């Protein structure tokens, strides 16, 4: 898949995320838009997973620790054929498996998440199992930056380095916002790179919306004996001008008029992408 095709996918994913959230009347808009490019690269270029590998013990694992951004994950999984996209219309409805946080009822989802600070310890366990079995799979998790205030992350960070889990990658969706406002104002976790470095991790920085750069950093071999933290600098609400960097869009649901406006902007982005390609 070319970078151009991948960029078009990202725009389409954003459109589907917004439509899903607007239809459901609930969802985490800002964070889904900030991580959707990361998920795009993971599922289309990096993870060795498919609807055929659901039970394969050697498949790569992805656990979304920032479970609230599940709409982005659902949209990407639907696109990858894990379930028919039409099923997503039941998002947040009575008896739907498409709950507002990931559950294993949905094909392709490895663990039930949503309470913060849980994904990294789980992934340490999965990566340890991989080491015990000499299995070649890789384990990925996506963390929110507000989420880093949960101490369990740092327990897991310590254990990952102790066990030299170079099959583990934690991606930080570093959009610097959380529900209350700027992470630095709520409870500052900067400099976050130095924290992971001092815990014994390899740390890489990347523009979390640059698909080529994400591809490079996610496909790169790990530093032997070290878990990897990829700090993906992102923009909360990315792709919709009036949602970008606005904390209230953390779980804001677009009105009909706002949705129309947002979709028009994304439509324009498709045009610009086509032009850039030509």
């Amino acid at each position, binding site marked *: 898949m070319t970078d151009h095709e991948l960029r078009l996918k990202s725009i389409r994913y954003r459109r589907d995320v917004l439509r899903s959230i607007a239809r459901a009347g609930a969802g985490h808009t800002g964070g889904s838009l900030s991580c959707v490019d990361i998920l795009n690269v993971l599922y289309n270029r990096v993870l060795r997973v498919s609807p055929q590998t659901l039970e394969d013990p050697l498949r790569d694992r992805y656990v979304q620790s920032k479970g609230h951004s599940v709409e982005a994950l659902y949209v990407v999984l639907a696109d990858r054929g894990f379930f028919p996209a039409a099923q997503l219309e039941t998002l947040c409805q009575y008896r739907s498996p498409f709950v507002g946080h990931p559950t294993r009822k949905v094909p392709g989802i490895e663990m*039930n998440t949503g309470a913060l600070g*849980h994904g990294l310890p*789980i992934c340490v366990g*999965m*990566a340890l*199992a991989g080491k015990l079995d000499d299995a070649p799979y890789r384990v990925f998790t996506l963390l929110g930056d507000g989420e880093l205030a949960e101490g*369990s992350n740092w*327990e*897991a960070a310590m254990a990952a380095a*102790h066990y030299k889990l170079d099959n583990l990658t934690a991606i930080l969706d570093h959009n610097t916002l959380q529900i209350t406002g700027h992470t630095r104002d709520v409870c500052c976790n900067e400099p976050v790179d130095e924290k992971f470095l001092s815990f014994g991790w390899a740390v890489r920085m990347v523009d979390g919306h640059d698909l080529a750069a994400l591809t490079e950093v996610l496909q790169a071999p790990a530093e032997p004996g070290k878990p990897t933290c990829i700090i993906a600098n992102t923009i909360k609400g990315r792709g919709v001008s009036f949602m970008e960097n606005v904390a209230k869009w953390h779980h804001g649901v677009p009105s009909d008029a706002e949705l129309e406006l947002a979709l028009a902007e994304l439509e324009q982005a498709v045009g610009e992408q086509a032009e850039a390609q030509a």
Partner: protein
Amino acid sequence: MSAPAPSMFSPDARATAERLGLSLGKPNLEAFAETLLELARHDRNIVAVTSDSRGSGKLVPFGQALPRQLIEVGIAEQNLVGISAGLAAAGKKSFAVSPACFLTARALEQIKNDVCYSDVRAVMVGISAGVSYGALGSTHHSLHDLAALRAIHNITVLAPADNFETREAVRAAAHAEHPVYLRFGKAPMYGLHGPDAEFKIGRAVTLRDGDDLAFIATGETVVHSVLAAAKLAEDGMNCRVLSMHTVKPLDVQAVIKAAKECRAVITVEEHSVHGGLGEACAAIILHAGLSPPFRIIGIPDEETVTGSQADIFRHYGMTMEGLAAAARDILRRAEVAV
């Protein structure tokens, strides 16, 4: 540091046990550790996960024999459970071993979400449960774990009474398809079962039959109930003793049968009287439309008295003497009421 552990049994209780032909075994904790090692030798997917608790968990020999199957995470119970869930999700049969007080309080959200909600084949092992740590104080007591876990969907809760039940419970947990919580203490336990004993999850064991009164007990209070029943038999009272090793799912039929056939029911647990075995039995009995004289014996809702485990058992009437007195009292009141 470890507090000195005076015997859980008075001289009279020991004499009663002798008359019953019971022999003192080892702590259930040791029976657990030996059984787990035995299982793990034949199944390399079994892993023990500890939070600086391999010594307390009697797992030092396990770590020496099977170093690759013992995973140490340091003093970090949330991480202990999260990692155990991840190991299980990736195909391991993980046993997270930590003092019950920390495991089921600090890591309760990990048990609820990562283990139960995600439905992985992980076993939570709460060692030195209840007031096993005695004089170390309430930070080290777990009087809430049965209540908390009863309210969480998708976990079997086992509190074995003696070494036999412990071995069977560990084997059953190793084969379980869904989450299991194992709870036991560290005091040496009398063997309560004969050679033809059977252990089945969800099925109470009738250790003594009788219809004057039923003791429905769980974990390490069962032996005291057996001794109390023996004591009462000397006065012509025939008491039933049920070892309710499975607190969830509870053996509903055994509880109803006891409530129907016996003149009174006493439940016994090393746990708060709130939300544990006693209230579970009370709900079943009321739902069945029965109302026998009924008493819950456990730790009341107060600042727990200080002292050793033996002191605490004696203080709250959980020993042979206390239970026999409670039985006499409830039966006398029942007669007065008639």
